[in-house]
C-alpha cells in the first residue's frame, strides 16, 4: 500500500511545530529568568525559528 504524500506534509507540520514550540518555550523561560536580556534572546529566538522553518519549507517543496 502506498502512503499518500499528504501524510508527509502532516509529519512536516508536526516536526516543525514541535521545533518552533521548543524554541519559543526556551526563549520564554530565558526571558523569565533574565528579563533584561529580552532583546538579545528575542533575536536569537527569531534566528532559531528561521532555521527550523526553513527546513520545514524545504521539505514542503520537495513534497
Amino acid at each position: 500500500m502506498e502512503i499518500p504524500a499528504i501524510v508527509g506534509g502532516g509529519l512536516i507540520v508536526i516536526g516543525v511545530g514541535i521545533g518552533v514550540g521548543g524554541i519559543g518555550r526556551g526563549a520564554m523561560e530565558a526571558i523569565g529568568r533574565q528579563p533584561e536580556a529580552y532583546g538579545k534572546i528575542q533575536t536569537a529566538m527569531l534566528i532559531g525559528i528561521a532555521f527550523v522553518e526553513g527546513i520545514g519549507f524545504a521539505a514542503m517543496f520537495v513534497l
Partner: protein
Amino acid sequence: MLSISKKKYFLSLVFILFGAFSIRAQDKKENSTNTGNTKSEIKEYINHHVLDSYDFDLLSYTKADESKVYVGVPLPIILWDGGLVIFSSSNFNHGESLAQFGEKYYKLYHGKIYKTDSSGKISYDIKQHVLNKAPLDFSITKGVVSIIFVSIIMFVLFRNLANSYKKNGMIANGLGRFFEPIVLYVRDEIAIPNIGIKYYKRYMSYLLTLFFFIWFCNMIGLTPLGINVTGNIAVTFCLALLTFIITNVTGKKEYWKHIFWAPGVPLPMKFLLAPIELLGVLIKPFSLMIRLYANISAGHIVMMTLISMIFIFRNWVGSSMSFMLAFFISIIEILVALLQAYIFTILSALYFGFAVEEQDH
C-alpha cells in the same frame, strides 16, 4: 428540503467548521461537475500568480461568449536568438497566438518562450519534455518591472532622506522620520553586534540595501497587484550570491584558516573538518536562498488558497470563515515580510562577521 438545510445551517452555527464542511459536501452533490471545474481553475490561478509572467495583468474575466478578457499592460519581450529580437508581449495574446519577428516564430508555452515554425508546432520527447529550442530570454517580465519600481522608490526615498540631513542640520523630515529609526536599527542591532565595531562600516551600505529591498519587495507582494518578486527563486539566488561573494572576497586570513585548518582540534580531525567546513561555505547562502523563497511563496499560496476557498464553499458560513482566515493570514504576512527581511540581513551580517573575525589569542 428547506427545513433540512435550515437545520444544517443551525448546526453549522454551533460547530462552525464541521457545518461548513457538510454544507460543502451537499453543494458538491448538487453540481459536482461545476466544483471540479472550479478547483482546477483555482489551482491554475494560484500557479499563475506564483510564477512570473510576460504581461502585467491586473484582472481577467470570461465574457458571455466564452472569450477571456485581460485587463493589464503588455510588457516588452527581449530575446537573443542569433540577433536581438524585441517585440511586445501582446503579440502572444496570452499564449493563444504565435509571435512573428521577421522570419522567426515564437510560441508561449507553459510560461516559457520556444522557437517554432510558422505552424506553431511544439514537439515532445518520450517524457513529455519540449524539444523546441528556447532562445535566451532577457524579457522585462512582471518581476523585473517590480524590481525596477522598488529600486526607483528606494533611490528617491533615501536620496531625499540623505539630502534632508544636509538642509535641516541633521534632522530628518517627512518620511525620513519613519525610516531613520529603521536605518539606525540595522546599524545598531544588526551590523555592529554581529560584525564588530571595527569593520561594520564597509558592510553597512550592502546590509541597508538588502534589508529595504527585501522588505519593499515583500510588501508590494502583498498589494492587490499580485507581484511575487522575492518568491521567485532566481531573485533570492542573486541576493544569496551577492552575500556569498562579499563574504568570501572580504574574508580574512583567520576565516580561511578556520575552514581549511581548524585550530584547536587534533590533527586527524583537521582533515575531517576541512571538507565539512568547505561545504558549509556553500550551504550558508543556499539556505538563505531557500528560506526567503520558500517563506514568501508559501505565504502567497496560503493566502490565495484561503481566498479561493470562498469560491469552493459558496455559502455564507464557509465564505466568511475563509475571509476571516485570509484577513488574519494577511496581517501575519505583513509581519513575515519584515521578519524575512530582518532574518536575511542579520544572517548576512553574521556571515560577514565570521569573515572578518579576529582571534584574540
